[in-house]
């Protein structure tokens, strides 16, 4: 049957984190932060390249990082980086079959062992670490 009639959920369904628990939220955040960091990396490498044009060019570029928006932006980057890293380590171990539970006889009401509390805890820890790093980063950037 033609794919046109396939009733796929499409990007909207893929990017809707609300329906299937915290694990789906983690998937969504991992994607968003991955893309955000890639965008930052490209901008960052362009930004650092101004140094080859000498001090004036570098200082001009630095002006942005000294504004409030610049500080907020860097704080966000730090948060994205910490979440993506911490959750990325969880995901890598999970992909290797570590911490996803053991097969056994399913008992009603069939709680899936791979959606266990250790996974959920690690997701919350990743979010928590990102929040802490953002607070620390903000305190340094805004120079309290």
């Amino acid at each position, binding site marked *: *049957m*033609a*794919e046109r*009639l*396939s*009733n*796929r*959920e*499409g*990007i909207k*369904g*893929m*990017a809707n984190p609300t*329906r*299937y*628990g915290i*694990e*789906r939220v*983690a*998937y969504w955040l*991992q*994607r968003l932060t991955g893309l955000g960091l890639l965008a930052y990396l490209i901008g960052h490498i362009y930004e650092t390249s101004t140094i080859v044009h000498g001090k004036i060019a570098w200082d001009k570029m630095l002006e942005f990082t000294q504004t409030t928006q610049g500080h907020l932006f860097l704080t966000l980057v730090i948060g994205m980086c910490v979440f993506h890293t911490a959750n990325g380590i969880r*995901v890598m171990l*999970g*992909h*290797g*079959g*570590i911490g*996803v*539970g053991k*097969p*056994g*006889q*399913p*008992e*009603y009401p*069939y*709680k*899936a*062992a*791979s*959606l266990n509390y250790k*996974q959920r805890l690690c997701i919350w820890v990743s979010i928590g670490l990102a929040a802490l790093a953002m607070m620390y980063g903000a305190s340094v950037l805004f120079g309290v």
Partner: protein
Amino acid sequence: MAVVTTPKPSEELISINKTLDQTNTITLRIARSNPAEGQETSYSEFKVPVKKWTTVLEAILYVKQNLDHAVAVRYSCRQASCGSCGMKINGKPGLACYTKVSELKSNVITVEPMNNFPIIRDLAVDFKQLISNHKKMKPFIIREDSEVTPESKEFIQTPKDLENFLQFSYCIKCGLCNSACPTMATDTSFIGPQGLAQAYRYVADNRDKGKEDRLKIVDDSHGIWRCHFAGSCSHVCPKGVDPAMAIQLLRGYMLGFQK
């Protein structure tokens, strides 16, 4: 001689029966469409009487019997065994025969065809892709001495050997996992959680010798690596198969964490 006394109906039992017998009326909204004929989705609304134990499938069948017999729905066993009645119930994939109206805690119930499957008509969807991906996983025991000869002996499996794959063999091919999967939402070539979990079901069976074959099949640009462990499949699986676990354990072989 034993004394037989007829039990008197207790007060308590009667009061329970009263609440069980209570009939509510709900609004059942059924998505109607016939894409092959160019008919877009519209929603038909029906008032349906339900009791505490009425399932969504029974509510749909009530409509078919009394209000509109043209509603297209696929079902057979009515007991979560055949895998025919998967659909989207109030936005989430579920088996209509395994979901009670009362547990949805809403007076309006919307049923729609499962996502990521082509619609045939109304609630009935096309399983061709799921079945074909399932077949690609070689869902049978592979070994050279599988022919039965006079010398053949039974293959003894311990209960522990059985537990390694038992839960994955409970899959009823209902497709709920594939309809919840975020990769399936856009990737038309992805094998999907159902098929990948079945690949693991055979790899984990110690009678089977087809591990290398199957690992090669799933090691594809639309194979196992397109799983990101979002766990949505395991959230909706009605049989406790836990496809997300099966996929990660299968990938464990490929990343060298499992032997």
